[in-house]
């Protein structure tokens, strides 16, 4: 078997192998059981004291959400101000300028919602102050926000009957001190050893062997790359993210980064099983997610290794696969795997240019984000899946003529209304956004924005449409990767994708937390022979069907105009 495929297999094996013990650990942390990191207790007590919060306070779901939203709003204001003023602030050795208001708006929202729609390029668009103080800061806290929300849902699902779902601040701080920070330290140290820069010096200038001037951007990158992967934010330090040889220097660093992308999202599924003492349920969920994930991985590896048929037609040797936008040290297989891992987990970092991948890969990447629950982002992925479970429970209940129940709680009108709204939100944001931008490209190509609509698209025809569809899909899924040919640094894209990001983040957090909180308040009905069991393969299949029917029905028409049409025009 070839070494590139072996690289893919070892990456997947490592991810699952590490996610299981991490899941057990996560469950213990959120349940407040004793774990080996308890030596951090004094540090955490200090944080709670300085922060002025009482970690023992039990919060109802409304209070929990209020605390979450308030601190997130504050981060947005803080981030916006720093980005807008960075040019005159310190730690700017390369003399980069401040962001325009619309770009600062988009960037601040993007990172607050744990996304990385970077309408700038890291080398010239940020300073070392904003890289560490805004971007990296938000990579930690936005990931911890998602994890805290899910921890609240764990707690709500476990309760027999309760008006509270735990303490937001407690879950939030523990997610940082017990999970994100220790793992980031380990990964960052390995990256530094592999050659990723961690310096506060500015660019290096030198003359190359052939006698040309070359400026080489560097910076405090290693610390950020670790958390960008582990927290599924994905925002790179340098423009091309982990395709950059300084961000991702070797095949080893690529394996470790790919594992880091998948690690916590997978572990959160296992944590659910340990938390609820329902391992079967966790394995059914993991199984459904993995079947979807692996079939996407196989599809995209086949497409990328087969190469671009238009280049095959030129009669040259395409043995390494489709190499436009890819790096030699990583190869087509590892880039294909990354493309699916990053879109499955709402990560958004890239190690190859998605815009240049073959149409079938683009199709799978978009579908991955449209589902947004095949593992999904840290915390939020499982929240999205939770909504699909609610809908599957409801439909199954109707099919067998019983009141729908989830883990001993009746699912009624209010919960279903919320679940339906959240499910419809994603296609609404993506399709309306794409329709609006397509309208502008066709009918108002000369609007006076920084980049005119007529110049937005880097590619003609169906692929150009895919660039817009991908951008809104990525924004609504809080993913952050892009078909980066799109000319997106202008008022229209900064503003419209900013709004999509905001709605696509907080409603899908509020919805599941509210449902879980409402269910927790209801009376517990003990399991009987008439109970619909959710930890069986049958129910897993049901959820799988719900996911694919919802995604397929909502999005296939749009996908048919973009990647599918391109596919059929080329093959």
């Amino acid at each position: 078997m070839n070494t590139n495929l072996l690289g893919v297999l070892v990456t997947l094996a490592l991810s699952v192998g590490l996610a299981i013990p991490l899941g057990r650990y996560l469950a213990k942390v959120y349940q407040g059981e004793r774990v080996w990191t308890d030596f951090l207790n004094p540090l955490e007590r200090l944080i709670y004291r300085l922060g002025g919060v009482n970690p023992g306070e039990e919060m109802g779901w409304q209070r929990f959400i209020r605390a979450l939203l308030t601190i997130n709003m504050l981060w947005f204001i803080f981030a916006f101000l720093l980005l807008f003023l960075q040019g005159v602030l310190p730690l700017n050795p390369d003399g980069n300028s401040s962001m325009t208001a619309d770009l600062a708006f988009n960037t601040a929202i993007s990172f607050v919602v744990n996304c990385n729609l970077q309408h700038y390029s890291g080398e010239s668009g940020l300073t070392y102050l904003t890289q560490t103080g805004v971007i990296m800061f938000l990579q930690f806290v936005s990931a911890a926000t998602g994890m805290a929300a899910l921890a609240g849902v764990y707690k709500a699902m476990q309760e027999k009957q309760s008006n509270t779902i735990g303490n937001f601040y407690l879950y939030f701080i523990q997610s940082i001190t017990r999970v994100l920070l220790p793992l980031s330290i380990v990964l960052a140290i390995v990256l530094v050893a592999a050659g990723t820069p961690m310096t506060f010096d500015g660019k290096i200038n030198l003359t190359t062997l052939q006698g040309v001037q070359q400026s080489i951007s560097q910076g405090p990158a290693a610390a950020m790359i670790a958390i960008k992967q582990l927290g599924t934010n994905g925002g790179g330090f340098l423009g091309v993210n982990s395709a950059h040889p300084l961000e991702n220097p070797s095949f080893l660093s690529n394996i470790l980064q790919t594992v880091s992308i998948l690690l916590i999202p997978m572990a959160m599924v296992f944590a659910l099983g340990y938390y609820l003492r329902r391992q079967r349920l966790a394995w059914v969920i993991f199984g459904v997610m993995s079947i979807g994930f692996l079939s996407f991985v196989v599809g995209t590896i086949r497409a990328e290794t087969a190469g671009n048929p238009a280049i095959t037609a030129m009669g040259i040797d395409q043995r390494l696969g489709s190499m436009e936008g890819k790096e030699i040290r990583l190869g087509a297989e590892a880039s294909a795997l990354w493309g699916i891992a990053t879109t499955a987990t709402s990560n958004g970092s890239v190690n190859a240019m998605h815009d240049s991948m073959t149409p079938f890969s683009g199709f799978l990447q978009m579908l991955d984000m449209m589902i947004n629950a095949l593992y999904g982002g840290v915390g939020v992925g499982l929240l999205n899946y939770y909504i699909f479970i609610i809908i599957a429970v409801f439909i199954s209940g109707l099919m067998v003529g019983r009141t729908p129940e989830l883990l001993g709680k009746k699912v009624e009108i209010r919960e279903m209304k919320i679940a339906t709204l959240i499910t419809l939100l994603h296609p609404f944001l993506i399709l309306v956004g794409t329709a609006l931008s397509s309208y502008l490209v066709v009918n108002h190509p000369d609007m006076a924005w920084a980049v005119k609509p007529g110049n937005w698209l880097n590619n003609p025809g169906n692929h150009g449409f895919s660039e817009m569809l991908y951008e809104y899909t990525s924004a609504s899924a809080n993913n952050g990767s892009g078909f980066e040919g799109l000319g997106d640094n202008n008022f229209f894209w900064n503003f419209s994708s900013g709004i999509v990001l905001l709605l696509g983040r907080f409603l899908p957090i509020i919805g599941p937390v509210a449902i879980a909180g409402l269910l927790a308040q209801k009376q517990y009905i003990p399991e009987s022979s008439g109970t619909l069991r959710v930890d069986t393969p049958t129910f897993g299949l049901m959820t799988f069907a719900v996911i694919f029917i919802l995604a397929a029905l909502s999005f296939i028409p749009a996908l048919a105009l973009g990647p599918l049409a391109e596919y059929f025009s080329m093959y």
Partner: protein
Amino acid sequence: MKQDILPAIRLTLVSLILVSVLYPLLIWGFAQFISPAQGKAQLVYHNGKAVGAALVGQNFSKDHYFWGRPSAVDYNAAGSAGSNKGPSNPDYLALVQSRIDSFLVHNPQVPQKDIPAELVTASGSGLDPDLSPAAAKIQVARISLSRNIPADKLYQLIEEHTQKPLLGMFGPPKVNVLHLNIALDQLK
């Protein structure tokens, strides 16, 4: 909302210190000891002068050097980017065709079917420092002619500079173009 504002401000400040000051300083401290160049991009020296970064590709266009891959940004290491050209874009396909034609002009010994696609397609970063061994070997005839060095010696040089897959099992083999070209300059 009001009861949450104050804790939000205070917690934000505390976590800022933790993750944006202490954490990067810790990693920076480690970098001073375990990174190849104290946390900076590692440089490569030739005749006592820095001629490039070990991990960052640079442009080679002269016939007597091994060429790296095409770059969408002409190896601008202060503005990395890929071409972001879609696979069906006619302008892009014309560009690839013109690279093939130009390669054949400079390497008349090579049959078209043997040109590795990576030599006519742009890398993701625009800074790919590596070549596949095949893409290096295909250039031997040209360099041998231009430098008057026997081909065997060049094949041997490529062999010496080929980095095997990780642990011999994972990932592709590769050749660092800058290191290879420096070694080429040192031959004789």
